[in-house]
Structure formats: C-alpha cells, structure tokens
C-alpha cells in the first residue's frame, strides 16, 4: 500500500519517475523477478507482484498468481492488485486462468466496476466447444456477485440449462442458487429453469437441481409430482451428496402427499398416547376402507433402503430419518443396524448419530434395546459422547435390563472423569424414578456413594437423593439423618441447599436434628452461597412454624441477617417470610395460612430426558442437533387426513401405478407389510424397471403397440437387465478408418430415443495426429431399419476418445444396420450386426404366468433341442449366467432346481420370448424357446445351445 502511494507521488515529481520505472523494468526483462520477489522485503512485495503480472512471461504471471492466492488463503488483503490480475482473465494457460478466477470470485464484489471488464471473456467462454471451459465460465460468472450483470447471468443460466453436456447443466443448477441469493426478484424466471432441469434425466443434474429447488422454491411441491418416480428410480445412481439432498426433499414431499401408514399398529405402539387417540378416530374410517399404502410411497421406501449400506454417513442418516418419518412402524427398525454401524465412525459423526438415536430411543425403546452394549461408554470417548451414551442407556432402561445397565453404571461412577461420574449419578436417578421396582436399591446405592471421597460425586448424589426421596418420603428418615450429618463436610452449594430443603420439608420426621442443623447454618450464614441462604431461610421459617419453642430465637437471628444481605432476592425472601410467619397487627389474613402455604405437600419432580421434545424437528437436521430452529429450516408437515390426488404423479400413461398396486390389493393387510422373501424381491425388481430413468417406458410400450401376446404383458413387468460385462465389437478399424477407430457395444439399457430402438454405444477414438472434425452419421439403410443418429461431434482431439450413444430399430431381425460415418473429409461405410440376444428386453413374471404363456405359444411357435451341457454348468448359477450373457433375458423364479426359466420381449414389437432349460440325467438338457417370432426364436435357440454346451 505504502509503495503504491510512494510511486504515485514520485510520478507527480517529474524527472525521478523515469529512473524509477527504468529500474523496475530491468529485472522484469532479465527474468529474475521470481527470485527477486522471494527475497524482496515485505513492503515491496505487492509492487513486484504487479510487475510480474504485467510481464510477458507466463511462468512469471503464474508465480505471481500463486503468491497472491497464498495471500488470499492467509486472509491478507490483495485487492489493490485487481487491475493487474483481471487482465489475465483471458490467458491461455489453464492453471493461470483458474487462479485468476479464484481471485475474481474473492474480490469482484469489492471492485465491481473493474470486474465488469472480465465479463466479455466469460461470455465468449460460454460458447466454447470444451464443456469444462463452458462450465467453469458459468461458475465464475455466477459467482462474482455483481448486481449489474444479473440479466447476463439469467441469460447464461437459461442457455446452460439446455446445454448438451450434463456437466454444464449441473453447473447451471448451481448458478440458479447464486443468482437467487444475489437478486431474489428473479425468482419466477428461476423457477421456470428449475422446472426444466427437474425433468432432466441425468443423474449428474438431479442432486444439484433439487438443491436449487430447496433453496429457491421449497414450497412449490407441484413441480415435484411429475418427477417423483424418476427421482426415486434415479436415486441409487446419483452421487452421494445429491442423494442426501434428494432424500431430505422427498421426505418432506411424502409427508404432504401420502396417508399416514401408522394406523393399524398405532394401538400397539409402545408409549405414544397421542397415537392411541388418533387411532380411535381413524378406526372408524379404517373399518369402512382399509389402509393401503400408495405404491409411490412404497417405491420411495424400497428405493432408499439399499442406500443404508452407503459408505457416506450422511446418506445413511438421511435414509434413517426418512424411514423414521415415513415408514410403517414395524419397518423403521431396519435402520437400527446401520445407525449403530455409524457409531464406529469419526467422533463428530458419532456425536450427531447419538443425538438422533437419543431422540428415537425415547419413543421406540425396542429399536435399540438389542444393541444396548454398543452404547457402553469407553474410557477414550469424548465428554459429549459419554453424556449422550448415558442418555441413551437411560432411555433404554426397562425392568428387564435394568440390572445390566446399573452394573455398567457402577463402573462409570468410579471413572476418573468426575464430571462424567456425576452425570452417571443423575442417570441412575432417572432410572430409579422411571422404574419404581428399583427405586429402593438405587437409593441405597446412592447413600453408600455419599461416603465417596470425591465431592462432585457426593454432591450430585445428594441432589439426586433429594429428588428420589420426594417421590416416596414415607420411610426414609434414616437417610435424612445421614444427610444431615453430611452437611458438616459438603461444600458444594447445590448439595447443601438440597440437604437443607430436605430437612425443612421433612422436619417433623427428624424433630431433634432439624433445630441443630439450623443452629449450624445460622453460624455460617454470612459465608454461604445465595442458594444456600435461601434454603436456610426456608428451613428457619418451616421450623418456626412447627417447633417455634426451640427455634424462635434462631429464626429471628437468621431473618435479621437476611434483612441486610447484599442480594435482593434474599432480602425480598426475608421480608416475605417475616410477614408470613411472625404475626403482627399489619399482617393480613395470609399469615393464618402460613403453615398451609409453607408446608404444603409438593409434587415430586419429574426427571425426564433432555431429548423428549426433540422430535418436533426433522431428524438429522441442524435444528434437531441444536434443539432450536435454524434459519431456513423447513417444517415437516403432518400427514394429510384425506389422500391427495395420486394421479398427479402419473407420467404420460396412467396404467403404471395400478399395475404395481393390483396384485397387492388382494392380499390381507398384515401380509402386505411383512413383505418377506421372494415376494419382496419380485416387487423390488419390478419397480426398478429401467433404473436409468425411463420409468415410464415400460408402460408406454405396453399401451402403445398392440400386437399379439399383448394381454400377457399386464402380468409381467419390465426388469432392469442383469449385469453382464459389456462385449465390445469393432465397427471401424483404425487402418481402414484413416486413423478413426470405432467400436460399439450394447449397453442393454432402454433406449432413450424410442422404445422400439435398441440402444448402442459407440466409442470413437482418434488415432491420427490431427484433430478430426464434424463426425456424424451419414446415409443409412436398409429400409425398415430406423436409426437415431448421435449429435455431430465437432472436434475430436488426437489420442482422445469419446463415447456416444445411438438408437437403432432393428425391427426384430438380425439383419445388419448399414450406415455411413462421415468426418469432414472422409466417409466410411459401416454396419452393425446385432446378436439376437441384444434385441430383447428382460421381463419378469411369476412361474404360473410363465407356464400359461408357454402353453399358448406351442406348435409353430416352439422350437426345442436336446443338448449336452458342460459339466460345470449343471448348477443353477452358471446356467443363468450363460443364458444372460448371450441374451438379455430376465430370470423367472422356478420352484424346481433342475428347471431354469427366462423371459424377455423383443424390443421392437414387444412379442414375448420365453426360454427354459430343463437339466436331465448325464449332463444333457432340454432347451426350449417359445416365441411368435419364429425366425428369431430359432436363431436364439442356436446361440443358447452354443453358449450352454461350451465349458
């Protein structure tokens, strides 16, 4: 700073600046500035940074930027370099450019006018063919927080939201939030963009756009409807951070859209009285119409369950809270194991998870009781972890396990960490009040602890004993006497106050001791803490009323001391008590009731968990952790009483939901929840049809093309393909393609372009030393085969490769699709010959349906052969694997070990293709294929035969 001023002044001076400038330019030219910069004195530092930035050498500029970033990181001000830095925004060196971006984002807000100089560079970069450059330009443009450019940002976001690259679209979703925080007035326009991006099928975009949704318009639940099923299906493939955000959002969504699943079982719920009353009301309704879970509700629960196995603790917690808030009560406990697993993670993770478990364990002891021992305290735990574990152990205490817990508590009481020992004693107190059977044992144990050497422990005991005695004061005068003796030694004010209160309260049971205690505290009154003084006054007043003969003078003495005490409260209390207990002419009617006022029986204190009301916050949130509403917290609404319209979530076709719901409707309710074994697996597979995001495609197919065998498809559901390692085929060799090599494989995913097409992925590699330009698909044939071309690749760098996908409708024949691959200069004719197995889409159905369908496809439609099977294929898994590796078929559950069944339908016309392998004696097997497409059937039979008979 100072040098800046200095040189400025000198420039005004006239002749000298020339010299100065001359000197400055020499080191720049010689290129040794880097070294000079390192050794220069501190105050000159920024000056030579400026020189370096203005030099012609990239390396010097880079060096300078690195040092500037170092300054920023340390929190030092480097804003005066802004003009010099901003000039480098268009640099070709990527690292330099990135560092300039870092600088811009940090200081643009302070130097808005200068920052505008960089905008045109970004606008240009937004059109760059490299997606990384487009994305980072948008990132910086949206991060620089200069209000003037809001319209430019808006335009850039809108454009980026339709970009071909999902990465750029993801960046656009992030930019939405930035623009919103800069200018909330853009909300309406931004919501339009969010709506558009929510429809995006890329897993990359999903998390970011939901984040934007949560930030900008969390109340626009209606935008989610149409995307709900897609989001559920995509969830597994979304990156971990996106998963957390989506799950949290869907939790809120589900609470507004589905009926409560907590009805039937509410009666059996352990201790929530409220639920009990609710269930009464709802029972009437339930009688008329039994509760059935919305299939979409079930879909969400099912698709989130696998995420409990995530390595990311935030994802696991998100799923756990989703189950807590949405699942039927019987199902919530599946999250327990995963939550307990998180306790082996980092200390901070443990802290948050334990807090949530503490809240859960109050309502649902049963969930965590089997894992009681996982909450045992280790000597190495941090203080806050120990406290939480104690809390949970206390919540979990029941008559059955209390002896185990108390034995564990004994060890804690002897811990070297005295504060922890004291907390344990409180916990024992809580157990004792909650479980009346053990109150006496606990009390005796605590009395023994009174002889402990540590004062904190003893004091805590006194306080807890006081609370316990209050609950059942009848027969405990021994303990009270014992406590009176303790008064001589205990110095902790809270404990002293508790003892005094106890003696005052039960003074009639210890008539001899009480006045003596009063005598002792009267002596030390002036040196006591305030709470002790207050209790002394109380004790004196009570004794005066019950035993005025012995204590009149003492009371007078104490009241006099209290009258001149420094503390307001004590003076007030003194004045009040004197009026109350010492009758004089001024005192009104009240003193007649003094005895009834002071010696009224007091209700026992309720010892309850600090986590009792925490469940008003959504679990896993910051607000829950803090037990206070954090800004931006979104309330979880109550379940709706009347089911909202289910059809809002239907996408294009309305058949989807019933096809899932129908088979369930016939089952009885309790069976419906139990979801065990095969049944569940089937459902699971069915619902995940097309996990790549085209959840609607299956039903679309069902309703649109109406050829034979259509009726059966209601019974079967499209299935996500069984995984097989993709086999890559060569399309164009490097030599014949003049450097362009192309290979293709069938990813076995539903084709995004048309449901009649098979999706094919091409990998193009440039083996030339020059970039290839304008690669596209040229003429295609033969007629009858439709091809969806990939978008023209503008530029493919040497040694680079790119994967594009295209769709081909082979029309259920193995005829090759021929087309031309064109580059700017050349054309190559290529052809893709599909394996018959790739023309299929797997479906699932029950065994009965399979047999029924097979019965209809006999005669001409059936082809069979007996084959010799390789010995290692005799067991079930190899057969399945081999069939699936050749043909994209789904496995049909079979009740016999020796029969394997597979089902699929052709991609183009949707005809059913069934295949079964019956293993027979002496490693032979009968292979049957049933389909209307006889040609296809026989080819398939041949291929399966080769595959199965190979070793």
């Amino acid at each position: 700073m100072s040098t800046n001023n200095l040189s400025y002044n000198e420039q005004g001076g006239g002749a000298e600046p020339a010299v100065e400038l001359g000197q400055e330019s020499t080191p720049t030219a010689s290129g040794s500035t880097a070294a000079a910069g390192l050794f220069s004195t501190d105050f000159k530092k920024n000056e030579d940074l400026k020189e370096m930035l203005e030099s012609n050498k990239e390396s010097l500029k880079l060096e300078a930027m690195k040092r500037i970033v170092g300054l920023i990181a340390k929190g030092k001000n480097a804003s005066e370099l802004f003009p010099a830095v901003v000039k480098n925004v268009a640099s070709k060196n990527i690292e330099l450019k990135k560092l300039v971006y870092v600088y811009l984002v940090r200081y643009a807000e302070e130097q808005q006018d200068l920052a505008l100089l960089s905008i045109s560079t970004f606008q240009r970069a937004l059109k760059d063919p490299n997606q990384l450059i487009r994305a980072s330009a948008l990132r910086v443009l949206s991060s620089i927080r200069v209000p003037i450019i809001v319209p430019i940002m808006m335009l850039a976001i809108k454009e980026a939201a339709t970009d071909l690259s999902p990465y750029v679209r993801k960046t656009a979703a992030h930019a939405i939030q930035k623009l919103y925080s800069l200018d909330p007035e853009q909300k309406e326009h931004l919501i339009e963009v969010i709506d558009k991006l929510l429809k995006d099928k890329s897993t990359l975009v999903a998390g970011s756009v939901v984040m934007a949704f949560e930030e900008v318009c969390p109340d626009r639940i209606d935008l989610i409807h149409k995307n709900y099923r897609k989001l559920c299906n995509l969830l597994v493939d979304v990156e971990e951070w996106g998963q957390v955000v989506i799950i949290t959002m869907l939790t809120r969504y589900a609470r507004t859209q589905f009926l409560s699943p907590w009805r039937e079982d509410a009666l059996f719920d352990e201790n929530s009285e409220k639920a009990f009353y609710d269930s009464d009301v709802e029972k009437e309704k339930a009688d008329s119409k039994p509760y059935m879970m919305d299939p979409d509700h079930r879909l969400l629960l099912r698709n989130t369950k696998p995420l409990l196995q995530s390595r990311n603790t935030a994802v696991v917690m998100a799923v756990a809270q989703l189950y807590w808030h949405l699942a039927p009560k019987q199902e919530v406990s599946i999250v327990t194991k995963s939550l307990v697993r998180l306790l082996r993670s980092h200390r901070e993770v443990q802290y948050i998870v334990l807090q949530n478990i503490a809240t859960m364990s109050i309502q649902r002891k049963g969930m965590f009781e089997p894992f009681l021992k996982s909450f045992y305290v280790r000597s190495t735990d941090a203080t806050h972890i120990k406290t939480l574990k104690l809390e949970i152990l206390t919540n979990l205490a029941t008559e059955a396990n209390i002896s185990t817990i108390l034995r564990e508590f004994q060890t804690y009481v002897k811990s070297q960490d005295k504060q922890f020992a004291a907390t344990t004693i409180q916990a024992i107190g809580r157990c004792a009040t909650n479980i009346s059977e053990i109150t006496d044992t606990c009390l005796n144990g605590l009395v023994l602890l009174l002889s402990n050497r540590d004062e904190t422990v003893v004091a805590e005991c006194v306080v807890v004993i006081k609370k316990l005695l209050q609950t059942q004061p009848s027969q405990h005068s021994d303990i009270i006497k014992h406590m009176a003796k303790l008064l001589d030694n205990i110095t902790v004010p809270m404990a002293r106050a508790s003892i005094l209160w106890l003696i005052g309260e039960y003074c009639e049971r210890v008539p001899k001791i009480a006045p003596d205690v009063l005598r002792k505290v009267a002596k030390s009154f002036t040196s006591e803490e305030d709470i002790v003084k207050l209790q002394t006054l109380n004790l004196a007043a009570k004794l005066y009323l019950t035993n005025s003969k012995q204590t009149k003078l003492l009371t007078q003495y104490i009241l006099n001391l209290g009258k001149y005490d420094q503390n307001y409260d004590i003076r007030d209390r003194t004045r009040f008590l004197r009026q109350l207990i010492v009758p004089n002419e001024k005192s009104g009617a009240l003193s007649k009731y003094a005895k009834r006022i002071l010696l009224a029986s007091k209700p026992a204190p309720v010892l309850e968990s600090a986590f009792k009301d925490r469940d008003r916050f959504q679990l896993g949130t910051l607000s829950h952790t803090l037990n206070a509403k954090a800004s931006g917290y979104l309330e979880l609404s109550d379940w709706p009483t009347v089911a909202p319209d289910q059809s809002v979530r239907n996408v294009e076709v309305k058949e989807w939901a019933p096809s899932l719901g129908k088979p369930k409707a016939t089952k009885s309710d309790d069976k419906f929840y139990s979801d065990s074994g095969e049944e569940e697996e089937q459902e699971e597979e069915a619902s995940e049809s097309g996990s790549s995001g085209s959840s609607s495609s299956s039903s679309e197919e069902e309703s649109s093309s109406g050829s034979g065998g259509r009726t059966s498809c209601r019974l079967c559901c499209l299935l996500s393909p069984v995984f097989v390692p993709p086999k890559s085929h060569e399309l164009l060799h490097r030599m014949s393609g003049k450097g362009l090599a192309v290979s293709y494989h069938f990813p076995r995913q539903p084709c995004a372009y048309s449901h009649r097409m098979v999706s094919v992925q091409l990998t193009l590699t440039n083996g030339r030393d020059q970039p290839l330009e304008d690669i596209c698909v040229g003429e295609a044939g033969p007629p009858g085969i439709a091809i969806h071309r990939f978008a023209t690749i503008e530029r493919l760098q040497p040694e680079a490769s790119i994967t594009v996908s295209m769709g081909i409708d082979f029309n259920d024949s193995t005829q090759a699709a021929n087309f031309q691959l064109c580059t700017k200069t050349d054309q190559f004719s290529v052809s893709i010959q599909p394996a018959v197995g790739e023309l299929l889409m797997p479906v699932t159905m029950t065994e009965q349906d399979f047999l029924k369908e097979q019965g209809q496809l006999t005669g001409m439609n059936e082809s069979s052969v007996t084959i010799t099977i390789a010995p290692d294929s005799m067991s079930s898994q190899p057969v399945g694997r081999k069939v699936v590796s050749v043909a994209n078929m789904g496995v049909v559950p079979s009740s016999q070990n020796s029969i394997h069944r597979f089902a699929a339908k052709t991609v183009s016309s949707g005809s059913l293709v069934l295949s079964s392998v019956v293993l027979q004696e002496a490693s032979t097997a009968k292979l049957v294929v049933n389909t209307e497409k006889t040609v296809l059937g026989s080819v398939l039979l041949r291929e399966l035969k080769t595959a199965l008979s190979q070793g």
Partner: protein
Amino acid sequence: MIHSLFLVSTAGHIFLEKHWKSVISRSVCDYLFEAQGKASAPENVPPVIATPHHYLISVYRDRIFFVAVIQTEVPPLFVIEFLHRVAETFQDYFGECSEASIKDNVVIVYELLEEMLDNGFPLATEANILKEMIKPPTILRSVVNTITGSSNVGGTLPTGQLSNIPWRRTGVKYTNNEAYFDVVEEIDAILDKSGTVVFAEIQGVIDACVKLSGMPDLTLSFVNPRLLDDVSFHPCVRFKRWEAERVLSFIPPDGNFRLMSYHVNAQNLVAIPVYVKQNVSFFETGSSGRLDITVGPKQTMGKTIEDVVITVHMPKVVLNANLTTNQGTSTYDPVTKVLVWDIGKLNQQKVPNLKGSLSLQSGAPRPDENPTLNIDLRIQQLAISGLKVNRLNMFGEKYKPFKGVKYVTKAGNAGPQREQRSTFFCWNLFE
C-alpha cells in the same frame, strides 16, 4: 450450504481461509476458541456451535480444526462427512495432513477446494477425478513444470465426471496388472476384572489396492459370506448382486480404496486371542501400591500374536512405578500417568509378566478408581472371524492379473479399543 472454511491449528492460529460466497470475517472463529477454552481437550470441543448469525460445524483431526461456517439449515452430518473427505484428500495428495504440508501446498489446496465445492455444494469429491484435474505434487513434476512451463491443472473434463462410474478414470494402463486385498479385522471388547467378556464384536474392512489396466470388472466371492452381519460398501459395489448372490461385483477405482466395511455379530463366536490377569492394589498406609499383570496367548489357531502393547492409565496420585518384566520394556510417564508395556511377540513357552511397586503421593487419599487397560495386538494371516475370500474373477479385460489376499487381525490402534476394566470395590447393592 457451506459458506466458508477455516483451518485452525490447536494453538488457535487460523492458517487458511476459503470463502465460497461472500466473505465472512475470521473473527467468527472466536466462538470456537471460546468453546475450546471450556473443553479440557480439543477432542471435547462440541462439533456444532451456534453463534448469533452463523453456525460452526467443525471436525478435529490431525491436530487441525476444520471449521465450516454455515448460515442456513443443513444436515450436520453432510458437512462433517465432507470435512473428513477434505482431510482425506489432503492426506492423499500430500502424504500427511498437517499444518506444515497445507501451508507448503497452499495453491494446490486452494485449487482442490475450488473443485470440491461450488457455491458450498460438493462438486467433485472422488480422488480419481480430482487427480485428473489437479495433479498431486511430486518433486519430479515440479522440476519439469518449472522448465517446460506446463501446469498441474488438467484442461479437459475428467471422463469420470460424466459417467456412471465417477470413481474410475479411463485409459488406465499398467505393465504389471495386480490386485491386492487386505482383510483387516479388529476386535473390540470390554472385559471385566475377572476376564469375563462384557461386550465383544469384530469389525472388519477390506482394503484394496487395485492396479489393473482398462475397465476390469471384478467379482470377489467369500467362502462363508453368512458371517457378515452388517456391511457398507464403496459406491462401486453392485448392491443388487450382493443381495441376490452374496458376491461383491464391482468395477474398481484405480489405486487404493476401501472396498467394504463389515461387522461380525456372533457375539459368542468372538474368541479373545489373549488372556490378561491383572492385580493392581493400593495400600491404605505407606502410600504405595502393587501391580502385577500377566498376559498369555489363547485360541490363536496356530498363529503368533505380535506387537502386543499394554497401556494403563494410572490414577493421578501414582507418582512413579518401579516395575520389572521378563519380556519387553515398560515405561511410566509420571506427567501423563500412562504406563506403557511393549511386549512384542507372545509365545507359548514363556508367559510375559510385569510386576513391581507403585509409589503414591504421600498424604493423598487412596485412589478408589481402578486403572483401565488397553491392549493392542496384531495377528498376521488370520481373520479372527474366520472370514475367507473364495476367489476373484475378472471380466471385461483379457490379461491375467496377479491377485493376492492378506489377512490381519488387530486390537486397538487408532480404532476402537479393547479395554479391560477392573472392579475392585464390591458395590453389590444393585444385585
């Protein structure tokens, strides 16, 4: 979400700050210092602190506080998990995560943080993707860079960012294709004084080091997968196949990664591999005490127990210890009150024993608490749960990889510890 990040040393020095939105003054860290002042150790600082305008969520590891400043509601675990991920990335890039290494590489740290978060929302946290964008520093590379002027920053979007398998980069090539798997198990047990098991469980992880070319697709199967009670996976593992067939099917990340963590539940099956007899007593008079600890092997299935270390946290009044042992070395630190007995290998013939006297502070009351024993040990070539890898198959590539599996059992170390507690005082009233 995450507004700003401060890195703070234990001494309270803020040595790095990064803001993703508007700048927040570093004075916000004063709330952390206040909490640190109240806590007895840095570990005891609460991870979430509310301040009037912000919330601080912090993680303490490697003697550094990673403090994230938050302004609005966010799942706290989200932030905590991310902060740990940041620390792990630093560890990965610089070999250690320390104040010195972060300061030395401040530019790379900044470039990393820039890529990891956009507007406070995680963008790229996979090590493989980050390494493609920002190359880790090596001496060779820094020399080359200064000569050629090339940079550490990649110019194209890493392919992983776009694909469904962000953890693997394309075009991996090795001359030796190898895949190694370490099955590491830890016993976590609490025993009482008599040696009875209060609580025991086995936790295991499978750490992998996979250096395979191309896009290999691996399948790892176990002889006895039923043993595994609770599992969590690296995102690469196909959960469906695990559910259906109990095999791990995955396209591995390149290099080192944790494939899975698991938990073995069968509580009764946990055979504690050693036994410990301990007798620590303090005399009422003469301010002294006696200590006698014996350790011996038990049920080790023929394998040797190595690296046995016993740590005892003594009560504060123990001034010094005069101990003799027939194996290993023992040291007592009078300042921290920690007794460490490094035994080494356990063999069947000789039973290690440590005994001697303890001198107590005179006049101080006899300690009524009993020292806790922590035992660290290691058994090579044995997974104590009996878990065995059956085979590893590779699809998708043609070469034949070299495969290896190693088993190790540990107790203690950085993870959860095995404690032996003693109950001297009979406090039988609860019975």
